[in-house]
């Protein structure tokens, strides 16, 4: 059963990722990316990471992709038509390189052994929240500062010059 779900979701994910990379039109690329984000949320759910799946849906699928969509749909694309598509030369050299790297890593992973499990997680949401606000409190605060800085930077960058 898990294999059925996994193969369905991974097929969906790979198709949408390949589509996002190779499709010409940036808007279609964003749509493929959205679909891949949904597939990853499904994978998270099947892995039992429910909170991350929900946050993936809310933050990634909504907040981040909406940014892209708002920017991409308001830019007049007739002017930048020549920047659609892909570089052929880079593809010819990049594809073999990437496949070789993947082959090497895959060999390592398939031959290697995974570490032993250390425990089980009961209520995922509760557990993540507890760990986040005890062991990882400082990184959490730093992340919020990063968000604040990014927000200020985005406002400064996106504002019209007077």
């Amino acid at each position, binding site marked *: 059963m898990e294999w059925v779900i996994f193969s369905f979701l991974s097929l969906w994910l790979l198709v949408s990722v390949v589509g996002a990379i190779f499709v010409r039109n940036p808007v*279609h690329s964003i*749509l493929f990316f*959205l679909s891949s984000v949904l597939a990853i949320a499904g994978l998270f759910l099947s892995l039992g990471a429910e*909170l991350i799946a929900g946050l993936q849906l809310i933050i990634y699928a*909504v907040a981040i*992709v*909406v940014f892209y*969509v708002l920017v991409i749909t308001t830019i007049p694309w007739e002017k930048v038509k020549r920047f659609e598509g892909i570089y052929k030369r880079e593809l010819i050299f990049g594809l073999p390189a990437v496949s070789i790297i993947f082959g090497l890593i895959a060999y390592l992973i398939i031959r290697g052994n995974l570490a032993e499990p250390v425990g089980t997680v009961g*209520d*995922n949401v509760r557990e993540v929240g507890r760990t986040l606000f005890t062991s990882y409190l400082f990184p959490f605060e730093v992340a919020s500062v990063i968000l604040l800085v990014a927000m200020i930077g985005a406002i400064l960058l996106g504002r019209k010059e007077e």
Partner: protein
Amino acid sequence: MTEVGVSLIVTLVKIVVLLGVALGVSAYLTWFERKLAGHIQARLGPSVVGPFGLLQPIADGIKLLTKESIIPKGADVPVYYLAVVLALAPAILLFAVIPFGPEFEVFGYKVKPIIADVNIGLLLVFAMGSLLVYGTIFSGWASNSKYAFIGSLRKAAVIIAYEVVLGFTVLGVVLLAGTLSTVGIVEAQAEKGVWFVFYQPVAFILYLFCMLAESGRVPFDIQEAEAELVTGYHVEYGGMRFGAFPLAEWYLNVMALSAIAVVLFFGGWSGPNILGPLSPYFWFLAKMFGLVFFVLWLHWTLPRFQARDVTEIAWKIMLPLALVNLVVTAVVLYMFGGE
């Protein structure tokens, strides 16, 4: 038969029943809304097709289905078609996390009248509610029309603003219940014996406004302000595709969000036992349609906000109120809470 097969079949049956009921009821909500609008304006509403105009939704459906489909020139055809799906799917998926009643037993199997009893029900509600934004944006963008695009951008701004407020609003209830699961929230209310609307009145009012904004109802219906933007982001669609957008936005979404409001604030299926085993469902549906009726009633009462005001209200008034509500709830719960 294995356990997995049974659960799969049960889930499939639940999905089919819910889909049929939701779509049928939302089709009849169109009739109800027109009737209500008519009577509020001292008119009659639909009254010709069938007794009391009851066959009007079917006639409308046949009319919409048999219409010629026109694709505007310069439209992005795949996205144009995909936008309909993107608008309808989240609105239907919202129903997956709504618990309609308590657990019951059929042929020795325990069945919960909820499709996905997940740990993160409320997160899914927010996620689906905000995924609606893609249907609107892409329908406006793909139809290559200025009015449609202005409407879709307005709606996107509204959804982004009110989704944030909605999240902070509901967090108060989550704090009280101690869980994100919808079933858990209903059970927490049953345990405490008090509906959360009495603990969180401010949150309820904020939720109500967010619900109106999310589903594009008056007074927040700036995205399809008929007088300025003809009908907003789906103006270039024809036939049933045109019908699908209001169906998703005005009816399915309103019903789903009302049901969530019932779960969050009105104790879900709790109520006096007057119909035996059917009474939880009766109470749930009664509360839900009470809220739906309120929304429709509001639609024909209030005028529309200005486009500028809508987002300003969200960011400058409602978000601070929701934050204050959340902080006060947390502090009070910390000082006087049980645990």
